[in-house]
């Protein structure tokens, strides 16, 4: 786990990235850091859940096929926990079944992007969008 923050005038937004593919995770972190976000990464589901509780990020980027604990279970646990209930979650996965998308929506995800279908730029825009909306009150269909 690494915690990187960049000193700016205002408090930087914290993003937790739960993604088991290290190069991909690193790339996403680099991209987000460039946008002056603070990033935390977790390489498996249970680590991700712990990090969410510990660091209370402003938004979570969640993969679904994860070791130890899969993304669905992480999402469900996040929504049950008082501490993490209101954190927006953007699912970023390569599963593209409507069924999977619906399931994450039902579990309370705020967005769903299929990795190969979008550019990293788009992911970043989506993050900005979700952050500007604030809490995890409404789920956003993508």
């Amino acid at each position: 786990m690494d915690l990187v923050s960049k000193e700016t005038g205002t408090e930087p937004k914290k993003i937790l990235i739960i993604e088991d593919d290290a190069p991909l995770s690193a790339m996403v972190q680099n991209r987000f850091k460039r946008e002056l976000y603070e990033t935390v990464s977790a390489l498996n589901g249970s680590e991700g859940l712990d990090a969410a509780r510990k660091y209370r990020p402003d938004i979570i980027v969640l993969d679904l096929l994860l070791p130890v604990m899969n993304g669905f279970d992480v999402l469900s646990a996040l929504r049950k926990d008082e501490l993490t209930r209101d954190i927006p979650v953007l699912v970023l996965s390569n599963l593209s079944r409507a069924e999977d998308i619906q399931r994450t929506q039902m579990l309370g995800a705020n967005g769903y992007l299929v990795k190969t279908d979008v550019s990293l730029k788009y992911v970043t825009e989506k993050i900005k969008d979700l952050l500007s909306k604030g809490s995890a009150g409404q789920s956003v269909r993508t």
Partner: protein
Amino acid sequence: MPANIDLFKSENMRRTEERQRTRMFYLFSGIAIPYLLAYGVFDYLDARGGVHIVIGAIEHLLAFLLLLSVARYYKHSQLSVLKPLITVLMMIMLLVSMFDGGISGTAIYWLFVFPPAAFYLNGYKPGIFYNTLFFVCSVAYLLLQRAGIIPAFYSMEQLVQMLFVLLQVFLISFAAQFNLEKFRVTIISQREHLRVLLGGLPVGITMVVAPDGRLSTANPSAERLFGRTIEPNVKAADFPKTYQLAREDGTPYPAEDLPLTVALMRGESTVKNDVFVKRPDGSHAVLRVSAAPVRDETGRIVSAVAVWEDATKEHEISRMKSDFISLASHQLRTPLTSIKWSIEMAADEENGPLSQAQKEALDFARRSTIRLVRLVSDLLNVSRIERGQIALQPELTDLDALCREAVAEINPTAVEKGLALENEVRALGQVRLDPKLIFQALLNLLANAVKYTPKGGHIEVGGRRGANEVEMFVRDSGVGIPAEAKDKIFQKFFRADNVSVDNEGTGLGLYLVKAIIESSGGRVWFESEVGKGTTFWFSLPISGVAAKEGSRELII
């Protein structure tokens, strides 16, 4: 009756039949033999008393019917010693009535009865023996009468006439029996051929007979494939239940869709349908069954024959292959994402300014990556199609609008290549189908047309609405499909020789089109001439398509 070749009747069945025959034998001999004995005495005494001849004849008829019933069960019984006894008894009765001048009608009657009965009861060769014996006895009787040893009731002339009648009847029944015998020998030898052939075949053979589809034959391989003894007389309608036949998704196989039933009831041949069978020992097998109707000389369906092959291994391998492709595709997508994103970031100059040459290089990389992503998606789709996991989500769809969208999507590419793209689709109306799937199929066909049509060419999309189907086509003035490639064009990864390999594409486009259209109840076909162009057609039923629960959707 060719339908009744119970070649592989099980031993149990044989024993049951034998028991039934024995029971019938006791029943009939219990009634018939005492009756016949009493009748003989009565008849003899009565004839002396001069009772009316008609009553005598009726009594004889009844006696004969009983005798025939007995003969029938004796014939099938293993108690072969009784057959000659019955024959000799009949012969003596006939000779006695010939002695007896009182009722000559009865004697004539017996003349007609005995020769065929002797054949029927004893078979061919003993039949000849008894008939000859009877003839000799009759001649001997004549001679004895002539010598005055036996008193004469008839004139010599009458007796000679009677002998001629006897001779005629004997010859006719001999000739009939001879033909029958030849026929029987042929049938037995053919039956033996068939038995050895079916017995040695590695595939299972079952046969059902009209009208209700009872099972008449099953060879040892069929029993091995089903993992149990196949009892004769099971009705086709009960097959799925009795033998636990199911479809791939585990639902019971509808009896009316079973190839044997289809062949018998509708007269249609079916080829290679997969049936999943649960054996009594708990193991599962996939049986690939083909069936065809058998007709008699008038064209009426008398039976149906099914061939069962074991496709279990094939299925396993195909499933493993699909699973592997599915897994590999998912695994491939993650590193692909890294590559794609890295290239995109670099190309957007997020990592610093680029030279023109660098931009071009990145653009090549980007295009190849997109193609790779597409290929992986197509591979995933193929593995889903092959596992029957495709979900159909039909909704009432305006085909004209769908067509406009597809054309709009492909038009920039066509224009870039200098091709004229015309949309002739008008008033195709609404059909209940899965719009995403049909859109994809149409897009694939259009993309192919653009891909294989040289600069300056012409592409046309059109359609017509028939009574039951909507037909749509995509026509191009492209390179065409060579004749030798026509059978393979819908196969995976196939590409005809006349197109260069560096064309972009995954080799799965037409395969997916076919899978999509067929899963929607339609057909795909094409006409093509090398150098002139190709027209791909597909049809969709106007009645629409039913929703299908599949665990997967195509990645579109």
